[in-house]
Every structure is written in structure tokens, then in C-alpha cells.
């Protein structure tokens, strides 16, 4: 547990919940990042607000970098794993209608049986693959 970072986890998680809540209270929309991003690309209807949401997602780390002086983050090397993982995440969230935000936060909060099932499945599957491969 040497890497445990409870403070940043709690503050960051609260910000995630607050952002998602704004979209619900003001616009009545579920803040599912995979659904919003894929619909922004592949569907004409409602494209402008979805593109604005994705612009906010892209700007987030720049905002944190401007406020937190020692903020930096690492990224994965280009590898076959990145290619396969990107395809799995795209196809999986497409078929499964959501990811960690839409199912894991919004759907679980709404007590949606579909979202609770999806969240249990992707958590278990993620733990299985990560634990087997590392």
C-alpha cells in the first residue's frame, strides 16, 4: 500500500462526481464519456454540446497543471498492447453502452441494474487481466 494517495483520490473523485452532476442538473444528460465522445463523432444530432464536453475533457489536465505547480503525468509507450487495448476498450464500451463514468458513476448512483452489472464485470475482467499479465 506504499503508493496509496487518499487525499488526491478523494478530491479528484469529488470533482468527477461534481462535473457529472452539473451535466445532469442543468442539461438532464448522463455524463458517460465513451457515449458522448462516440456520438459526437458518429451522430449528427446533439453534436455541439458533445464536442464542448470533450473539449472540457481535453482541457482538464491543462487546468490542473496551471493550478498545481508540480503536476505531471506519465503516458504509455507505443506497443501492441496499446493497440489491442484501444480496440477492446472501443468495441467493449460501444457494445456495452458505457464505461467507468456512465456505468460506474452515473449508472451505479441511479441504481441501474444494467450499470451495476456492467461495473462488476469490467472491474473483475480488468483485475483478472492486469493480475495475470503483471
Amino acid at each position, binding site marked *: 500500500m506504499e503508493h496509496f494517495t487518499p487525499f488526491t483520490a478523494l478530491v479528484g473523485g469529488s470533482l468527477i462526481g461534481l462535473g457529472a452532476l452539473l451535466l445532469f442538473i442543468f*442539461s*438532464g444528460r448522463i455524463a458517460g464519456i465513451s457515449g458522448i465522445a462516440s456520438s459526437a463523432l458518429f451522430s449528427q444530432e446533439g453534436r455541439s454540446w458533445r464536442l464542448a464536453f470533450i473539449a472540457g475533457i481535453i482541457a*482538464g489536465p491543462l487546468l490542473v497543471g496551471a493550478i*498545481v505547480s508540480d503536476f505531471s503525468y506519465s503516458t504509455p509507450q507505443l506497443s501492441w498492447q*496499446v493497440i489491442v487495448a484501444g480496440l477492446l476498450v472501443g468495441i467493449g464500451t460501444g457494445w456495452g453502452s458505457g464505461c467507468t*463514468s456512465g456505468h460506474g458513476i452515473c449508472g451505479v448512483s441511479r441504481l441501474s441494474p*444494467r450499470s451495476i452489472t456492467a461495473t462488476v464485470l469490467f472491474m473483475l*475482467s480488468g*483485475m483478472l*487481466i492486469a493480475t495475470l499479465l503483471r
Partner: protein
Amino acid sequence: MPIIIAFVAGLLMSAGIAYSQMIVPEKVLGFLTLNANWDPSLILVMASALAVYSTGYWLFAKKDKPLFAGQFHLPGKKELDKPLLLGSLLFGAGWGLVGYCPGPALAAISSGSSGTLAFIACMLLGWFISRKLPI
């Protein structure tokens, strides 16, 4: 106004993803990998996000409509069908392989990292495939 709300919502969520270090694949893999170095931080990220969202959701969901829109847009589907089950398992496998889910990957796009950009390109291709080949 919906445009500004959507931008601020995305900005806050992404700032949270970055500040909580969910944007770092190694951090996420530290949670998904069950070993002696297991890092429970992501549980607190999820728990605090759920606490804030569910409190606000259940207080506000009794209203007739959202503040700046005519109606709520909530998923109506109820059944636990094959696309949901298989899709979630495949998503988890990809998440556990590299440590990226869609939000953190998109948030990291300004890094310009070739690994991040390749992941995003493949994720977009995956979304396209899932729409062209529904199961």
C-alpha cells in the same frame, strides 16, 4: 448555455481524473493488479464520485425537468443482454491490459504521446466497429 455547461462538466470531470492520478495508467494498474503492492486509491476516487453524484442525483431527480433543458435523457433499457455483458467484459480486458479507460485516455491527448494517441485512434476505430457490427 448547454454548450457552456457541457464544457464545464467535462472540464471538472477531467480535472478530477488528472488530480486523482487516474490519468496515469500505472496508477490504475496499481489498483487492478492484486498483489502485495496493491493500491486502493481508485476505490476512494469511485466512492467520493459516487457520494457526490448520488446525493445530487437523488435530490434532483424528483424535479420535472433539468434547469436548462426540456426533459431528462435517461437510458430506458432494462434487460441484461449479450451486448452489455460481453461488451463490459471486453472493455475490462482492455482496461486491465494498459490502464486506460476512455476518459483518462482522452484527457491525456494534449501530452501528444504516441502511445496515448495510438490508444485513442484504436478506441475510435473500436467505437466505429461496434456501431457497424452490433451483436
